[in-house]
């Protein structure tokens, strides 16, 4: 089966999935997102981001105030479908935590938090092509979006760029090939 056939098959599969999901699905992804809910979940967002990029010998997501950036991105830089996915994802994550750990995410310990996020990361399946196609149709998925915004927010923050990574404000010269040790951080900007 060549690449194109694979794509057709997956498209067929998705078409079935959409028609099966019906109108409700349509409404739930295009409705006006409840952005107020998002604002109220700022501390949860901060904790999830910190689980993704924790403070170690360098600052973590919370110190970089990544939660503010994530909320800004969801509010102003995310399409409606994906905004709804994001909000729904947060609700799902809280439900899942309650059901499986019988407490809130914030009261979970570091290991529990990581397992919860790993569950959500794997929930979308590992087939890259299917994930991509689903995103095209239903919007970006919750966890991919969360992780991506966390990374962007962290790596472009002053804390993240200058302490978590290497930031070269004014390089002056270009050195084409330098030898590095395994402590070398990657450059924050290109």
């Amino acid at each position: 089966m060549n690449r194109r056939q694979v794509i057709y098959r997956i498209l067929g599969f998705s078409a079935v999935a959409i028609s099966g999901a019906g109108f409700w699905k349509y409404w739930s992804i295009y409705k006006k997102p409840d952005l107020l809910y998002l604002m109220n979940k700022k501390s949860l967002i901060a904790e999830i981001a910190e689980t993704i990029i924790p403070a170690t010998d360098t600052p973590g997501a919370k110190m970089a105030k990544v939660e503010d950036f994530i909320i800004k991105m969801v509010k102003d830089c995310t399409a409606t479908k994906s905004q709804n996915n994001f909000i729904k994802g947060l609700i799902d994550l809280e439900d899942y935590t309650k059901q499986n750990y019988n407490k809130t995410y914030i009261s979970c310990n570091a290991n529990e938090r990581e397992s919860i996020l790993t569950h959500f990361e794997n929930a979308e399946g590992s087939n890259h092509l299917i994930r991509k196609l689903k995103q095209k149709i239903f919007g970006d998925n919750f966890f991919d979006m969360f992780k991506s915004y966390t990374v962007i927010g962290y790596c472009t923050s002053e804390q993240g760029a200058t302490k978590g990574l290497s930031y070269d404000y004014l390089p002056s010269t270009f050195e084409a090939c330098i030898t590095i040790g395994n402590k070398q951080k990657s450059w924050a900007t290109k």
Partner: protein
Amino acid sequence: MINIIKASASYDAIVIGSGITGGWAAKELCEKGLKTLLLERGRDIHHIKDYPTANLNPWDFEYRLNNTTQELTENPIRSRTSDESDRMFFASDVDHPYIQQKPFNWVRGYQVGGRSLIWGRQCYRLSDLDFEANIKEGISIDWPIRYKDISGWYDYVERFIGVSGKHENLPHLPDGCYQPPMELNCIEKHLASSIKKNEEHRLLTIARVANLTRGWNGRGPCQNRNLCTRGCPYGGYFSSNSATIPAAAATGNLTIRPFSIVREIIYDEKLERATGVRVIDMNTHEELEFNSRIIFVNASTINTAAILLNSKSSRFPNGMGNDSEQLGHNLMDHHSSSGASGVYDGYRDEYYKGRRPCGFLIPRFRNIGNGTQANFLRGYNFQGRGEREGWQERKDSLKGVGSKFKEQLTKPGQWSVWMGGWGECLPYFDNKIALSVNDKDKWGLPLVEVDFSFRENEHLMMEDIKQTGASMLEEAGFKGVNTFSYNTPGGSTVHEMGTARMGNDPKTSVLNKYNQMHAVKNLFVTDGSCMTSSACQNPSLTYMALTARACDYAVSEMKKGNL
């Protein structure tokens, strides 16, 4: 230094547009002693003072250089190539609508300096392979010039703007007057040596760019920040604002008038000359007239054709100088949407320091020398870059969360190379721009309609780019080699050209070999609209050389009393 005038007045020369070519026209004409009026539709931009974002950090931007959904919907074209840091130098789609008969990305910079502030600075010469292609293949019409007519002007321009690059001694990509080249990094050197070993007629070299590796005419050197499109506080790259306009102003002969939208050029039937221009003040909407002995039109390919088409008279009912009916036709743009990428396992101890503001070039290798070597005409070059993957690439591919994830994310990733083919586009008569009959902009000017598509020759070339790019990477030991076709529409390479072509015969062309309008001798068009074919090299260096050459000719004709 620069006086802004309010009333109408008379000049020796008028230059329309202050971008890459208009800046050159203004400099040359002023230096030759002509009182010159430079008309620019956008606002004034002073070098350094008006680069508000040039020294900002990523965290200084509200959205950290991401576009908002509002910006993406309101300005679908502008937002493709700009963000918070340089948006102020790209024209807004909302304020400046145009009609797309087929999708066409028209990327514009409406300010003093035009797109010289935001260009990619790649500077390559054309050669006789390019100038002779049309006549040899029976495509379109012959170029009225050959390499020898322009080579000295390339020297002249390169010496002023400052181009860094490496001599490679290729007949079809002539060497120029270069500053020391920038340097290839490990992976690029690796790919270069593999190409040299496996493909004796191909080579990979550092890009030739108008970024200064040495201080030059009071500018630079480049500090390797790779933030050029914000404007450079070091004057490290060539722009009209940093170089040509200050040189023009220094003569005392320049008057620059921003906010001046040229509506049309005035033709005097008795004198058989263009006598001046009509301008709409962008802010007051008031109409003004300016007169001059000669006029240079440098509003950039599409706008230049629009101004000429809008300049109607009983002598020129279909637009000024349009006896050949070629005006607005033969629109070309390079395609650059296909290519290949891959990653390389190795050189783990090697990295680079600094942000080199350019990549590499693999000069054209198809259909050169004797005989045809491909199932399409002409050719393409590869432009690309090698780097170690950073968080930008790996945010979506690295699995996991927590300290291990963070550790991996913040370490340099594997080496990767991305390269795209920049391909020649043939001139097709029905790729064109026209003026809308019904729709007008805020200033009452007819909207431009663009009707453009790539054809079979371009599509065949894109296929070859993918295959060839992938096999060069595979031969060099790259893994995960991927080919891509972004299928971006015309305009996306921002090398639009050809709408008022040069030629020997007034029946089939608009301009003669000196960029002088066949039918209106005191009118010169020296931006990309003059191009008879597109070659595959980034074109602005050629526009600049043709501009300097045309200015020299115009002034000598004036002196002889012919103009």
